[in-house]
């Protein structure tokens, strides 16, 4: 513990770098998944091939991807962030599709009957209803991303992962434990933020009967679980 207190500024710097390396790719993954998911729901035949492709990308080992990218982007932050963005896409994209497909037909018909056009229906009705499932995918992507950044330490850019390579070289377990704890805490904080966001974005769920909530959360849990592996 003394070690942690005497190195506070270094730990703060590494934690900040870690959060940056982990979260920017998740945001990019979300930004790509949303339009891609909307397109795949509208043109259903696109979904299986795109899902197949993201599943294959998900199967690529992080270390191997880092290494592949060194040839193109060198030993930079980008080399670590591109694979994380790809994994995030693979985890979030199926949840966007599942979430949008889970919108009950009567709800969609009611929106049409009220005169909502395609875009307004998507933004005002369908996406909000899909929020719990999308956030489930987002949670898996965020937590995995925060965990995976540390592998980047093997190529010299890994945020808190530095504490692991350094701890190994110095045979110093305190440093390693501090690293693990900080990463888990970071993931926990990010997860709490996402759960809070879900509650704020879906106020109608608070009054829902437990049965409805259970179905939604079950669907959400499964989508997230499958990650890129694709459950339908």
């Amino acid at each position, binding site marked *: 513990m003394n070690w942690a207190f005497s190195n506070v500024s270094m730990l703060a710097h590494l934690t900040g770098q870690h959060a940056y390396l982990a979260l920017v790719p998740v945001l990019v993954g979300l930004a790509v998944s949303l339009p891609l998911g909307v397109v795949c729901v509208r043109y259903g035949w696109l979904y299986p091939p795109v899902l197949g492709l993201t599943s294959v990308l998900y199967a690529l080992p992080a270390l191997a991807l880092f290494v*592949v990218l060194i040839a193109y982007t060198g030993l930079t932050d980008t080399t670590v962030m591109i694979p994380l963005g790809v994994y995030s896409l693979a985890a979030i994209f199926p949840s966007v599709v599942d979430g949008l497909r889970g919108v009950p037909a009567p709800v969609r018909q009611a929106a049409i009957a009220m005169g909502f056009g395609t875009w307004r229906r998507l933004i005002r009705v369908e996406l909000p209803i899909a929020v719990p499932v999308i956030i489930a995918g987002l949670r898996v992507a965020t937590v995995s991303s925060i965990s995976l950044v540390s592998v980047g330490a093997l190529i010299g850019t890994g945020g808190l*992962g530095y504490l692991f390579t350094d701890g190994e070289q110095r045979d110093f377990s305190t440093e390693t434990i501090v690293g693990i704890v900080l990463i888990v805490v970071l993931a926990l904080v990010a997860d709490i933020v996402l759960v809070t966001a879900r509650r704020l974005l879906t106020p109608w769920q608070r009054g829902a009967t437990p049965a409805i909530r259970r179905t939604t959360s079950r669907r959400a849990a499964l989508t997230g679980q499958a990650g890129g592996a694709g459950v339908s």
Partner: protein
Amino acid sequence: MSFFDFAWQWLSVSGHWSGDNGVPARLIEHVEYTALAMVISVVIALPVGVLIGHTRRGGFTLVSLANIWRSLPTLGLLVLAFIESGGASWAWVIPLVALAIPPIMVTTYEGVLGVDADLKDAAIGMGMTSRQVLFKVEVPVAMPLILLGLRTAAIQVVATATIAAYISLGGFGRYIIDGLATNNYQLVAAGAACVVALALVMQFAFSGLSRVVVSAGLRKQARQS
């Protein structure tokens, strides 16, 4: 020059396909690490998932815990296990098992939990005991999801077993770590290509396995829906 050219340059040398550091030897090591980690994880995670799904108690805790569990950094666990065990060569088992448990446990739980209540009622009506319902109805019906969890876990373990080389063990990770240490990019690329190939083989193996293990009735249903 692309990644594949680099990998090909190393892999096309016939001398790299024999001996202790040859591709076949490293493949066997890699598969050994994966298989052992998977067996241990299945022994731990499968019964817990089935039990919690069957009794319907503690599910929320399980899912929340599994989500945070995923954030445990594999590299950190590896280094910690290595240091704390005094440099034991089995230290790689711990991070790989920790990696494989959450997907297996959660999908098993969700699979068993999601079995249609009517189906269970019918089984009880036919005179099955609770144990029979579990093994003859709930587990077979949950099998597609259980396999999905196993596949996710297996692919992650194959991909991550590369880090065993970080504590001086073998497997394809040897090529990546050694190549990085000596700036031999061809070697690194060859190692990465081997891991990716093995991960893809694993993916196909599981599609084949699901044809054998999932009951014919469920497969038919899946095709129709």
